[in-house]
């Protein structure tokens, strides 16, 4: 059984005297057959963690288990894994066929079995007819597909894939995603997957592991990570465009932010008291023009804002809004407290520099402890008659 466990895995590099901690006391338990995505900022230790599992990097501390064996010091070949490397690393002296069949030939599979599998893999990655090309005669995306094919022909217990689709176009990505899912089901393997594409992480994974600075931040199903981020880091990292963060102070019946006030009952959340500093998180799609107020179950009171920049994305428009002394435009430095990003339908009738009013969907407001970053609550309790929200003084001046 290909359960994968990391226990207190730490990896440090010594780089000319100073120590770089690439992975920091990582504990991870991936069940057999699970599909886990690693996400996190560049340099946070995703690849290093993968290498530790693969056995290419021996952890400085901690143990690695695959199945029921401790494999910390086992060579990679005995771990039953296949890996797609971030740097692709095709064998330059072999053509595509030889690259793909490499692992099979090592295991002395019969020739027709090899042919069959290679053909099938080439089919999956849409490289039929290129089997006799050399790597240096291929485009970046084609090479990446060879690397994927090289891994999938092996049908191992555990797949490690480090940004396997980074160089592929959107359509191919979608295709590959489906194929990966199919493979996952068919082979009943465990897959650990690194991606920077949130859509990918969302659609593919059973759980997402969010890493930062070598440390695991949260590991949960995609929607949980999206809807109930464990801390400020996860909240800010998951979701694109990013969640709006506004700092606020708890008063007796509200949270006051520099530019607006949200009705709030401190008693409704454990561990929150009047006077506490909180950070309020609101996703762009949870802000709506006041006009839509009716469609929202628990809207806040309207907040007036100035449209600063409109970024039409085709299926939606990102609306960057300024709160407060809204005359200044984005070019000047402004605290994030004074900005909000709203995502609206493309058919909305809105122009840059418009003064508009927006409401926040209170059911999707997240509160975080500013000091520790820990999430406190992901949904504000409805407050009576939707009262308690007043524009800030700045706003009323406007």
């Amino acid at each position, binding site marked *: 059984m290909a359960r994968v466990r990391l226990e207190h895995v730490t990896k440090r590099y010594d780089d000319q005297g100073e120590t770089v901690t690439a992975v920091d006391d990582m504990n991870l338990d991936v069940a057999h057959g699970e599909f886990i995505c690693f996400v996190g900022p560049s340099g946070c230790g995703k690849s290093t963690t993968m*290498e530790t599992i*693969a*056995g*290419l990097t021996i952890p400085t501390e901690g143990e690695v288990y695959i199945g029921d064996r401790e494999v910390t010091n086992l*060579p*990679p*070949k005995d771990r039953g*894994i*296949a*890996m797609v*490397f971030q*740097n692709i*690393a095709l*064998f330059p*002296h*072999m053509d595509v066929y030889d690259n793909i069949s*490499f*692992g099979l*030939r*090592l*295991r002395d599979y019969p020739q027709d079995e090899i042919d069959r599998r290679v053909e099938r893999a080439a089919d999956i990655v849409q490289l039929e007819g290129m089997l006799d090309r050399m790597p240096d005669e291929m485009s970046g995306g084609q090479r990446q597909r060879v690397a994927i094919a*090289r891994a999938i022909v*092996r049908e191992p217990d555990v797949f*490690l894939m480090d940004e396997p689709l980074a160089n592929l176009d959107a359509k191919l990505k979608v295709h590959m995603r489906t194929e990966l899912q199919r493979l996952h089901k068919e082979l009943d393997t465990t897959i650990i997957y690194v991606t920077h594409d949130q859509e990918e992480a969302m659609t593919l994974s059973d759980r997402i592991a969010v890493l930062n600075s070598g440390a695991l931040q949260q590991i949960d199903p995609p929607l949980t990570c999206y809807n109930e981020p464990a801390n400020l880091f996860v909240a800010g990292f998951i979701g694109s465009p990013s969640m709006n963060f506004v700092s606020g102070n708890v008063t007796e019946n509200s949270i006051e932010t520099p530019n607006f006030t949200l009705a709030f009952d401190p008693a409704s959340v454990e561990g929150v008291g009047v006077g506490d500093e909180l950070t309020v998180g609101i996703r762009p799609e949870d802000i709506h023009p006041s006009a839509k107020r009716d469609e929202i179950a628990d809207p806040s009171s309207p907040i007036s804002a100035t449209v600063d920049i409109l970024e039409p994305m085709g299926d939606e428009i990102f609306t960057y809004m300024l709160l407060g002394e809204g005359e200044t435009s984005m070019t000047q430095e402004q605290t994030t407290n004074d900005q909000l990003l709203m995502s609206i339908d493309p058919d909305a009738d809105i122009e840059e520099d418009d003064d508009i009013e927006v409401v926040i969907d209170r059911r999707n407001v997240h509160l975080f402890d500013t000091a520790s970053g820990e999430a406190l609550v992901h949904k504000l309790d409805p407050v009576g008659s939707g009262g308690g929200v007043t524009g800030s003084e700045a706003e009323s001046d406007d």
Partner: protein
Amino acid sequence: MSTEAGRESRRSGALVDLMRWMENLSDTQYAYLLLTPVFLLLGMVALYPLLRTFELSLYALSVDLSTTSFVGLDNYIQLFTGEKNRYLPGGTTFLPANLEFISLLNSALVLTLIIAVVSVAFETVIGLGQALILDQDFYGRRWVRAAIIIPWAVPIVIQGMIFFLMFNNNVGFATPPLADLGLLAPTNTLNDTASATFIIIVADIWKTSAFMALLILAGLQSIDRGLYNVAKVAGATKWQQFKLITLPLILPTIGVAVLFRSVQVMRIYGIIPTVSSCTVVPSLSCMVVATFNTREGVSAAIAFVTAAIIGIVVMGLILWQGEDAI
């Protein structure tokens, strides 16, 4: 305009013009331009003397050494018909007189080929082994490296002296044990063609395995280590990694090493007179030198025949290694 363009023009004009002119050449023109220095040098210092030497090979010296006359290709023809054997030292013949072992060894041509094949085969294997060891990470490896490379740094005369004294019949200590094994003649060892050839081959292997090792090591070091990660994950054992990654990637380097060692060993000379003598171990180059002072024409002809034979062997090697050896 951007600052970059301004920068360019600040450099001195003529040089920039030259550079620009060079950059605009097509691949072929550029290739030939860059090759000019090599061919100038080789033309002057190698091709010219070779032509002159070839010219020499078309002349023969009278018996009393006083006059030369043009004989065309006679020197070459007589080399192959055996008439020139009288100018070769001792009982040496150019082609073997018959197929007996001792006649084969007395043939400059066959003996040279025998030495070449045996030496290069052993050197390649040993050199590869040494390179693989030097490629590892272990405590004190820089000293082991230096040690393994030392033989190559020993001048040929000294190499000859080392082995000569080892097998010399005053103080040599190596003959009896090897003679007991039947590898060497127990007496007059260094004047016994088979024994002396054996010793010379051993000496050659001792010295030039380091050449192989050095080159192959360089090849090993140029391999992208990332490829081993891929291979390891794909489940390759150490042997498979070697066979499927290392070997194909260092093959071009091994090719160059084997090529040049073959060429060098077929010109083997210096070690022979120091360990034994050209009379006993008559390599082709020995024959060139032996006739050098008395029969320039013959000497030149043997030199060109040697080159031709090496050329044939090299072509064989290249064909055997595949077209992209070159």
